[in-house]
């Protein structure tokens, strides 16, 4: 077996190992993300209040827009 052939096989094996390690890490990450998502879903009722703050949100946008406009004319 030539040196090049051996090197190629070694590299293939390393790539396979790295890919399976990567898959394992991805699976672990997905698991953590899902746990975070379950935790967030547990607090769904906390977000109900945010729906009732629409006028305050529009007020914030108004203020931010005025500031941006002032900045635009100052330039």
């Amino acid at each position, binding site marked *: 077996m030539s040196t090049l052939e051996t090197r190629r096989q070694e590299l293939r094996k390393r790539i396979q190992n790295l890919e399976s390690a990567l898959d394992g890490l991805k699976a672990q990450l997905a698991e953590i993300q899902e746990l975070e*998502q379950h935790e967030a879903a547990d607090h769904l009722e906390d977000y109900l209040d945010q729906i009732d703050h629409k006028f305050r949100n529009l007020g914030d946008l108004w203020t931010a827009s005025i500031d941006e406009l002032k900045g635009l004319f100052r330039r």
Partner: protein
Amino acid sequence: MTVTSTPDGDGIGDPRTRWMQWLSVASLVYLLLVAVSLIGGGFKLSAGDQAKSLFDFASNPVAGLVIGTVATALIQSSSTVTSIIVGLVAGGLPVTIAIPMVMGANIGTTITNTIVSLGHLKEGDEFRRAFAAATIHDFFNVISVLIFLPLEIVFGLLDKTGVWLAKLMLGGDSMSMKGLNFIKPLVKPPVKLVGNALEGLGSTAGGISMIALGIVLIFVSITVIGKLLKVLMVGRAKQFLHAAIGRGPITGIGTGAVVTVLVQSSSTTTSLIVPLVGTGVFNLRQIYPFTLGANIGTCITGLLAATAITGDNAVFALEIALIHLLYNLVGVVVIYGLPFLRELPVVAAEALADAAVRNKLYAAAYIVGVFFLIPGTIVLGSRLIGV
């Protein structure tokens, strides 16, 4: 009405209070059905067979679309607007005019979660994610209108399918639902009572009063139902959300639809997910199917409203409610089913969110432009050129 939830969010703690809340929901659903019937009855009383001509101003499909969009954006409830449309169809509004209106209601309802996303305005990345999560729904509904409204104008596909479906359900054969509808006899007496009470005003004023009362009652009943169900069903909604985590898009669509049916409001469903994406726990692609499910789930109110309609126009009322459902189902199948179309709302929402983070004026221009300025200009322009 004050509604409180238990700390664990599983609805109302005290069983007696819980029963009272459910009894209130049932009463309000009944009130909604009566209200829808009042609108139909009011039109019949005031305009009789001439009711159709009252809607000539909206005969242009674009005008219908704009009316649906602006009305829903102002009221912030597509369920209210579609229920009113069902009532108007029962009163003589042609289904062909009502179709663009329900399409517009789909666009108008998206303003609520867009405004909710503004709660994250001061947090750069959080706002970008939240704003994209809100506007993906807008872009999906706008693309849906751009595809299906021209097709409807040219071929009338939704109208024809709606006629077929409504006849199938209300037809004279033994498989029809006509004999099974127990709602109509329940709704008739109070409508008759209101009609008799307003008889003294004359047919025109009495009819207009019935219509106005119907619209107000629809608004009140849907608003209070929404407030009650939001708290009563949050525990159940959580269970469905937990079940959908880590699953595919079809489960996401199904969960979005079921949660919307439970809370009777697509705005609530789509607004609830905005903070979930804002915090970075869910990403845009994960919640995308969930928002599409909300479009489907919201059709339940219109279908419920249609069951209250009696008389010759009952078939048309059911037709428009079925068309609303069909339009949303086909929209999801076509736009989400085709990869190149599926990506469009994602790309557009992300691009707009990036721009809005750089300059808040983009967010302001988007809200004012899409929901009010562009629709207003279209209507004014079409009036000026006489279309």
